[in-house]
């Protein structure tokens, strides 16, 4: 994990039009990317836990220029459809949304379009794998995530933010769930893609990992990639996720320390 260095993204690279990016060189001959990172370098991850008083758990996370807020309520009794009750475990309810001002193009984003529904589904699936739902039968855990600023890797930032929020809410998990996107350019895996890279026609892979056991909670890949490259790509993604988990671990420890100092221990 030594090669995963964090560094401030050089300049806010934001492309207004995602036209044909084919001309853009995503990886220079010297091995630098558009924003000056090395191929296996993550963006700077900054996070805070416990940002809201009302919620049972909350967190704010920045990964480069992508910023997300996550809020957790629960476990509480099942609201709405009674038929969702599981008599052996808790159900997880996820809602993903994007702020109107989150992208370069300002637009109203209605709830329930296919993409955001899918994203909610994926978040739900990720956390169903990670949260120990069997401890809370017949109850529900709500996870709301909002993207405040979008610069690529929305899914992974949401997962990372939500992990912190779930930890803040004190809900037991098997492990941190960390997610990261990885792209593939010139036979090289690029870690933690930003928006410019994502829209540049790179085949990208999103992976959510429980780092300790190396278990993959979610795997999603778009665009074409030869089978032989899959392994190296997954490998890179897993390394990146482990890097993220280190950062998250630090954040949690720091937060707990602060809280315990405040409570006079």
């Amino acid at each position, binding site marked *: 994990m030594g090669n995963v260095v964090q560094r401030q993204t050089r300049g806010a690279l934001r492309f207004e039009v995602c036209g044909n990016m084919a001309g853009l060189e995503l990886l220079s001959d010297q091995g630098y990317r558009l924003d000056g990172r090395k191929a296996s370098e993550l963006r700077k991850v900054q996070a805070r836990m416990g940002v809201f008083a009302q919620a049972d758990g909350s967190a704010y996370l920045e990964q480069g220029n992508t910023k997300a807020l996550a809020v957790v309520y629960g476990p509480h009794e099942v609201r709405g459809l009674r038929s969702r009750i599981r008599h052996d475990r808790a159900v997880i309810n996820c809602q993903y949304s994007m702020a109107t001002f989150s992208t370069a193009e300002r637009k109203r984003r209605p709830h329930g379009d296919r993409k955001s529904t899918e994203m909610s589904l994926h978040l739900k699936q990720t956390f169903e794998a990670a949260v120990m739902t069997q401890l809370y039968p017949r109850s529900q855990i709500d996870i709301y995530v909002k993207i405040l600023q979008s610069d690529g890797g929305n899914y992974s930032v949401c997962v990372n933010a939500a992990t912190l929020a779930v930890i803040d809410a004190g809900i037991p998990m098997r492990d941190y769930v960390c997610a990261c996107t990885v792209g593939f350019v010139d036979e090289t895996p690029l870690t933690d893609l930003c928006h410019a890279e994502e829209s540049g026609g790179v085949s990208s892979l999103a992976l959510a990992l429980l780092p300790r056991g190396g278990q993959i909670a979610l795997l999603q890949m778009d*665009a074409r990639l030869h*089978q032989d490259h899959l392994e190296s790509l997954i490998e890179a993604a897993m390394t990146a996720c482990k890097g993220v988990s280190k950062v998250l671990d630090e954040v949690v420890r720091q937060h707990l320390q602060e809280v315990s100092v405040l409570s006079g221990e």
Partner: protein
Amino acid sequence: MKDTPLSNCERDFLLKAIEEKKRLDGRQTYDYRKMKITFGTDYGCCFVDLGKTRVMAQVSGELVAPKENRPNEGIMFFNIELSPMASPAFEQGRQSELSVKLNRQLERCLRNSKCIDTESLCVVSGEKVWQIRVDVHMLNHDGNLMDAASIAAITALCHFRRPDVGIQGDEVTVYTPEERDPIPLSIYHMPVSVSFSFFQQGTYLLVDPCEREERVMDGLLMIAMNKHREICSIQSSGGIMLLKEQVMRCSKIASVKVSEITELISKALENDKRARKAGGRCGFAESMPQERITALKMDKTSVEMTDVSDRANDIVQKSEAPPQTVPSPVVPIPGVGQVGQGLQNTWGLEDDEEEENGEEQDEKITEMEEEQHEKEESRGGDVVEISDSEEEEVVILHPETPDKTPKNTGSSFHQKMAATSKKRQKK
């Protein structure tokens, strides 16, 4: 309407059976169910039967204004309709989780992998482009909708012909098929989705789960690939935790399955082309008067029976095959289910030796076997590395089955053999 709940006993039994490497319909772990591809009268209409799962895909095209940010690209639109006709669990109207999942996966599989040349669909840059719309309707749900839908969609796209257009100055003329021959879409590659279901926290793995298996499974991994072994999309779903090795193994199995399926699709397309050239009437509507549509499609008993005999054979460790002279017991009783299956093939060229359809005539079967042998050989010649890498897989995958195939032919051959031997036993 609610679906019938799954009882504990079914769940326990299925899991136990999977542990013992048995499946409800007698398949092997990595076998697909019987797959059948047929076409409608129109271009771009395709039916796919995967066991009892049945889906229909219809492609249509219209001229629209392009999207602002892509002025010279045609538009692809995909829609999967889960009609209540297919299963009592599907509700009308509301977008269920399943439907969102399937729709997005199909989009990713076919649109994001850029398998269709959208630029060739541009008529007048910035003004008129073709919008190609693919509607996939689920007709009967018996598990593994995604694979059936992806096969139906890509086959329908390959089958589709759009009207020719001519441009004189500002005027765009759309020619009728009588005036000018309609044009096929230009398709770069054919992504096909393969689903893997996981049981017991990923300990067991099955290909092509049927509906009951889907209800018991922990999670699903869908891999879309083309025959060049390029992965077009991967999606895991359900709360399972996978290991990297499992994903890699699945991708290897997928590459074998995809090449088989692609072969089948191109064969079906070819047959249809020949049938159309010959001027024979073909398609869904034509099958009505010939009673090929089953009125009381209760059970494809043929499937069960082949499996039973197959399994019975398993018990004796394949020591003796049933006498070949036993007439097929599939002859349907009038009035009870199964109208038309197993009759003389009246469908025209389109249907023959199309797929692993057990009810063809004897000669056909042998023909097909030969073909499959040929195909297998040629495949082995083309891609040597696969079969090499598969070789180890075979050993792992079928640890219990007697290894009756020569080592160097790979697992696909093995499965083929199983399929053909099934057919032989049935006769």
